[in-house]
């Protein structure tokens, strides 16, 4: 064995070096004009150019070394692992799941409940703000939105590109009604959900006959219409200025988070004045909303309406000939999805204290849809993972100040957010075309549970 393996390994090195050099040359050719040369205006407003050979060298080196490692180290390693698995008889799917795997949901829930406490303990009250708000709340909002959209896209199979419209309806419902009627968050939260659901039905009616691409385009237009109304109906929405000074949520009307209030929360508990407590409270609110969304989704899947949604995604004509009213089935899917969008919207409004049409652009719909697709349509766990990776990952970019050392002081990593988002999507879709969790959990059993794996099947690209 020794001789041939040495033989192939030295052959492999030659191949890796050759491919590495090749990749470097291609990178040089591709980047020499874009990266190697930079144009700028000098003091006399003339367009002149200067060279950036150092930066170019970094690009070329990354390409060459990356390719070298890929061919020489990573790929053989993966192959060896596959071979070892095949030899030991353990296939990709092992029946024996690890402890972590079996109790994943419980562990995740406990971790989430402890998360704000842990960040206060680790980073102090003020230091925890970043972790609770920027990471925790931000990610959970997207989890909730994606789970809401999942009902429409993942379960009922209705491609909705304008989901952000319902998010906007929820946010503006809360902002306007709390300003004009003085109602509290806890009254307006369900109301915002109901209003958004109503808009879901209003959207649903005209698009009942549409499917696939056509449906997608109309929902896209619907999302834009809502945004344009928000911009142009200045008497009510104040247009692009947005609405500010939105009331904070209270702890069920008992304690308030307004510093001036007599029952200011931190004061009532003898704590120092800090906005962190409000954020921690909001974290638990959005966590509860997420859990509600998940609970409702799981319950509905086991009920006639949920089964009808999933059947509708597969074959509309068959549904009808089995006695399912496809009109009401579609409308309830739109309405239910929209309702959760509305909840998330009113939460967003109270968290930001400010809403403007800028928060509800098409890009938001696209990001939410991307999270649903990446997670694996229909899978709550997969979608949550996708939200953590995508939203958490882009938030992490803000922390990457050290990259300035490499790319120069003008480099703002946040600007590359969408680039990385796209790159991550391409990579995930290459390796896991059905998303992180491509398995669909069946809902009907006679005796024992069995997971039907998507990886066994080739039909469809769902």
């Amino acid at each position, binding site marked *: 064995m020794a001789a041939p393996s040495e033989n192939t390994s030295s052959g492999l090195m030659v191949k890796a070096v050759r491919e590495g050099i090749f990749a470097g040359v291609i990178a040089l050719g591709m980047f020499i004009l874009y990266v190697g040369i930079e144009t700028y205006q000098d003091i006399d407003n003339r367009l002149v150019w200067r060279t950036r050979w150092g930066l170019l060298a970094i690009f070329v080196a990354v390409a060459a070394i990356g390719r070298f490692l890929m061919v020489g180290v990573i790929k053989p390693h993966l192959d060896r692992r596959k071979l070892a698995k095949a030899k030991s008889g353990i296939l990709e799917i092992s029946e024996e799941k690890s402890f972590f795997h079996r109790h994943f949901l419980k562990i995740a829930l406990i971790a989430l409940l402890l998360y704000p406490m842990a960040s206060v303990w680790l980073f102090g009250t003020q230091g925890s703000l970043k972790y609770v708000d920027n990471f925790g709340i931000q990610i959970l909002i997207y989890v909730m939105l994606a789970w809401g959209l999942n009902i429409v896209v993942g379960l009922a199979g209705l491609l909705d590109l304008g989901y952000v419209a319902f998010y906007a309806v929820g946010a503006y419902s809360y902002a306007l009604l709390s300003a004009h009627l003085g109602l509290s968050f806890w009254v307006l939260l369900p109301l915002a959900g109901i209003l958004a659901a109503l808009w879901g039905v209003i959207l649903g009616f005209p698009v009942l006959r549409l499917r696939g691409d056509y449906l997608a385009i109309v929902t896209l237009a619907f999302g834009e219409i809502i945004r344009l109304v928000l911009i142009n109906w200045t008497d009510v929405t104040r247009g692009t200025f947005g609405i500010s000074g939105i009331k904070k949520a209270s702890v069920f009307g008992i304690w308030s988070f307004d510093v001036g209030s007599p029952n200011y929360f931190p004061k009532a508990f003898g704590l120092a004045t800090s906005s962190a407590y409000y954020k921690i409270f909001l974290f638990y609110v959005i966590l509860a909303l997420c859990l509600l969304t998940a609970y409702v989704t799981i319950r509905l899947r086991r009920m006639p309406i949920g089964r009808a949604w999933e059947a509708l*995604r*597969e*074959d509309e004509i*068959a549904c009808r*000939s*089995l*006695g399912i009213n496809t009109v009401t089935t579609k409308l309830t899917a739109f309405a239910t999805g929209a309702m959760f969008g509305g909840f998330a919207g009113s939460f967003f409004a109270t968290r930001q204290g400010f809403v403007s049409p800028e928060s509800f652009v098409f890009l938001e719909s696209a990001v939410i849809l991307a999270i649903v697709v990446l997670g694996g349509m229909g899978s709550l766990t997969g979608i949550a993972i996708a939200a953590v990776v995508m939203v958490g990952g882009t938030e992490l970019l803000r922390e990457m100040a050290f990259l300035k050392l490499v790319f120069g002081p003008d480099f703002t990593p946040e600007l590359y957010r969408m680039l990385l988002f796209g790159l991550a999507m391409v990579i995930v879709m290459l390796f896991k075309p059905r998303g992180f969790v491509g398995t669909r959990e069946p809902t009907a059993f*006679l005796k024992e549970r069995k997971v039907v794996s998507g990886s066994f099947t080739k039909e*469809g690209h*769902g």
Partner: protein
Amino acid sequence: MAGESLLKVQGVETYYGNIRALAGVDVEVNKGEIVSLIGANGAGKSTLMMTICGSPQARNGQVIFDGEDITRLPTHLIARKRIAQSPEGRRIFPRMTVLENLQMGAGLDNLKYFAEDVEKIFTLFPRLKERQSQRGGTLSGGEQQMLSIGRALMARPKLLLLDEPSLGLAPLIVKGIFEAIKKLNQEEGLTVFLVEQNAFAALKLSDRAYVMVNGKVTMSGPGRELLANPEVRAAYLEGGRH
């Protein structure tokens, strides 16, 4: 029981746009009967089956079911009258499991008789029992056909419509399916209206039969009589069977 009319199709004309697929069809199915419909490709057999279910709706004429005019009812309401169809192309739900597909069929009674009826389907088609948690789309063609028929039966239909139950199946499985139909008819009094290319087997199985040509019924009569008819033999039997 037998002799009482269950389904009456009178002068039905169905159009796809401007194309007339059914040109005034009269068909009658009595309670407890097995009636078959044979005809060349494109004669309009599947169109008739779908018209009975209201998708597409007949432009002229009437469909009467159990004494009630159902011509203008939407499809899902027709289904709720207990007309179940195993349609052309089977149309099972590919990403759902066998059991879930059967569940979809039992939706009309909100799964009240589910456990009981599933057992019956599994005795009828033991293959489905073995494959109960497999996804519909990964079943073999024959298994999908069994599932499609099973799903239709889960609705406890008064009238079962079968569109080419033997399509693409091995002779042994065809025999099994036809035996199952016969058994349901004899033991449970199920009324069946079926379309078949396999004219020999269909005519032998059924009490009465219709022959359709270019959207019109050209011949009808007891199955055995048509089987002996020289015209039918020439058009649908000879060369087709050995």
